[in-house]
């Protein structure tokens, strides 16, 4: 029954968008992490979505294909008092673009809401289908 598959499709999209929101949270939280476990500044992370077959061959859900590290150049800030500053007084800060991440956050949250609504609509339709023939 195709309407049941809507739950799989919307559910896969919701978990993918939640993972995207997770990376946004990680990026924003680490926007000022000048160092990390391997000693280098934190690198911005981005998810890559991919359509994946879910149940029926015609309609596809979403999955997170991979999480990539943004290789754009790191921000260099002049702060001689910083413990990690080099000889000239510059500190390498993460390449997190806060504006971009805020936009990403809103986009992920709206997409999540859309899929919740889709799922609710399918649920209402299925429940109504169950009442066929009842007086």
């Amino acid at each position, binding site marked *: 029954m*195709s309407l049941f598959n809507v739950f799989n*499709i*919307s559910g896969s999209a919701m978990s993918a968008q939640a993972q995207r929101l997770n990376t946004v949270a990680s990026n924003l939280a680490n926007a000022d992490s000048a160092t990390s476990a391997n000693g280098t500044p934190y690198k911005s992370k981005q998810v890559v979505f*991919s359509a994946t077959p879910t149940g029926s061959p015609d309609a596809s859900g979403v999955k997170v294909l991979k999480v990539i590290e943004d290789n754009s150049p790191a921000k260099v800030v002049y702060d001689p008092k910083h413990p990690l500053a080099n000889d000239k007084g510059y500190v390498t800060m993460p390449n997190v673009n806060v504006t971009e991440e805020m936009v990403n956050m809103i986009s992920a949250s709206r997409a999540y809401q859309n899929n919740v609504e889709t799922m609710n609509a399918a649920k209402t339709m299925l429940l109504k289908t169950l009442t*066929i*023939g009842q007086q």
Partner: protein
Amino acid sequence: MLNRLDEALSFHQNALRVRGQRQELIAANIANADTPNFKARDIDFKAAMQSAVAGINKNAFQAAKTSPLHLDGVRASSSNTSTAPGEPLFRPVIQGSVDGNTVDMDVERNQFADNGIRYEASLTLINAQLKQMLAALQSS
């Protein structure tokens, strides 16, 4: 007798099935609104409905053949066309995006709401038809 009752309900039964399939496709479009290179798809409801009523839909029941003397189902005669009526088609692109995604959320939301309402309309009609049948059966 039961055959006739079944025939009376089969139109709306087909309508519900095609509406359900369409709802699933539109849900997939909404789910993939952020997937790079995803192309939005939809079915031509008129063609899908016509083929469903004519009994040449791809999900039609097909019996297993255990002898060459067995007859083919309806499906075999219509399967050689490239796009069977009612197959999912790609939506025309109005405003393409840089990542190759062609999902337009406004269109999808409209179609999703529209399709849902029409699904419920079919349900209402089926219910009315059932009531009519019961009234005819029970009149004394």
